[in-house]
């Protein structure tokens, strides 16, 4: 038998009526949230905390990456020669370095230039004149190309160290490796925590909206009897979930901003103690919007799942009628 359709009634077929239905559902949701203000605040706080942790880890990961990048870009080798080295031998090492593709620039400092620089910086004039000979070695300062893999740098260091006139090569790749490893750990942690807490947000919304559905069961029964569609029944609860998620996203953004503000000065002092400067990567408008949108999406998903399952479940047992 072919399925028939029931004609839409004229006073409920306009686009305006659809908008009014949605506006009414939104108003119902806002009223529900304001009537249960304490619960709403707790849900926002829960979601906010759950979202702020992965966001915080994202910022830590981003800042470590940026710091590693910055330090890596500034990195170079310093090749120190034995005091007995001849200019010819130093030139030979310089030529070897020039041939390397990972070397950007090379600057030579003779032992005399090193002494002048030392005197200028320290102000020790008389003391140095008392020495029999210049103790400072000649050196080559090498600036490397950006984004060079640590293995290539290590290979270059080894090849330069093999020269008999080279006393030492200053370059420590260990701490960059450590920084990159920390970056990897934080990055992995961020995804794991993000997934877990994202699920947590969906669950919190699921549980909160489920309570809202239970509290309105009698009303749902009547609405169903008077012709409300499933979509109409679900809509206020979905809007509740969206509002929970949106509010939670705003709280999470506020928590992250607050935390950044709180650590800004101590971190600045810490970095200054090592003679450096730091520019923290913070949340910008885009990333804050993404966080709020993510909260809203998770809230929507939680509410969608629970409203579909609960209303369907109640229909299955015909208790809604």
């Amino acid at each position, binding site marked *: *038998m*072919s*399925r*028939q*359709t*029931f*004609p*839409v*009634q004229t*006073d*409920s077929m*306009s686009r*305006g*009526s*659809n*908008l*009014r*239905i949605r506006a*009414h559902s939104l108003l119902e949701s806002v009223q529900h949230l304001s009537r249960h203000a304490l619960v709403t605040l707790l849900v926002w706080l829960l979601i906010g905390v759950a979202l702020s942790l992965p966001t915080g880890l994202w910022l830590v990961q981003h800042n470590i990456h940026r710091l590693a990048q910055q330090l890596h870009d500034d990195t170079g080798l310093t090749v120190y020669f034995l005091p007995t080295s001849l200019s010819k031998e130093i030139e030979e090492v310089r030529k070897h370095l020039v041939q390397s593709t990972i070397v950007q620039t090379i600057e030579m400092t003779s032992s005399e230039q090193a002494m002048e620089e030392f005197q200028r910086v320290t102000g020790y004039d008389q003391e140095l004149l008392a020495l029999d000979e210049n103790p400072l070695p000649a050196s080559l300062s090498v600036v490397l190309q950006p984004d060079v893999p640590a293995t290539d740098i290590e290979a270059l260091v080894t090849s330069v160290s093999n020269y008999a006139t080279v006393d030492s090569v200053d370059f420590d790749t260990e701490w960059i490796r450590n920084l990159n490893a920390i970056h990897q750990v934080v990055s992995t942690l961020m995804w794991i925590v993000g997934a877990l807490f994202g699920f947590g947000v969906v669950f919190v919304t699921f549980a909160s909206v489920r309570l809202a559905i239970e509290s309105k069961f*009698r*009303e749902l*029964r*009547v*609405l*169903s*009897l*008077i*012709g*409300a*569609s*499933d979509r*109409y029944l679900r809509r206020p609860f979905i809007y509740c979930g969206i509002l929970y998620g949106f509010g939670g996203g705003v709280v999470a953004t506020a928590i992250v901003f607050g935390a950044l503000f709180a650590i800004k000065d101590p971190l600045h002092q810490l970095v200054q103690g090592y003679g450096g400067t730091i520019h923290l990567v913070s949340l910008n408008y885009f990333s804050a919007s993404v966080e709020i949108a993510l909260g809203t999406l998770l809230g929507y998903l939680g509410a969608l799942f629970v409203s579909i399952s609960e209303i369907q479940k109640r229909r299955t047992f*015909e208790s809604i*009628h």
Partner: protein
Amino acid sequence: MSKVVLENIGKTFENAFEILREISVTFDQESVNFIIGRSGAGKTTLIRILLGLTSPTVGRVLFNDIDITSLSRSEIARYRRSVGIVLQDPSLIPNRSIFDNVAMPLWVRGLRSKEIRHRVERCLNVVGLDSVKDLYPVRLSTGEQQRVSIARAIAHRPKLLVADEPTGNMDNQLSLEVRSLFDMFPELGTTVIVATHEPELTENMKHVFELKDGTMQRVAPQASTADSTSSNQ
């Protein structure tokens, strides 16, 4: 105008109990139709079938020639927006005002708030409760609550009004008051179907059907018309 026809309706429960069998009836349009019968005769089952809350085992329910037993769930919801429903329990929402309770079917239809206010006030006026719109259901008597549920049932100007034991919790005088409300609706173009176990409610009424032993007989007026007859034909 709304034409409601039951075609060969039968209903057997899962425990094989046959509550309704071969019921074929055309309800009189723009009239108050009473279905009488003892408790357990199957009135509520028939009303549930009429409202699309349950399906008949066999047969069809035609509303303006549309078979509602073949409609999808969303189409059923749309059908119910054409129907006013009054149950024995007024089913008012306790934490909503009388105004909001009556306005519910109008929210579902997305009417303008001005139109909603106008219709709710008018319906409350019809049932004689225009002064209580800001109160909550708990402040009203059982009879008043049922009148509010009638106001809610007519707020969206339904083509069909279905009532299941609407006077079940009332004394005789209140019952007659409620019946007099139903008497007004045919003039507004609404077909009314009322299921009741109180025969006194149907005194002097023209369109009365009796549900007995799973079948339905027209008992008033005399079964002279061809289209509104009993089941065993």
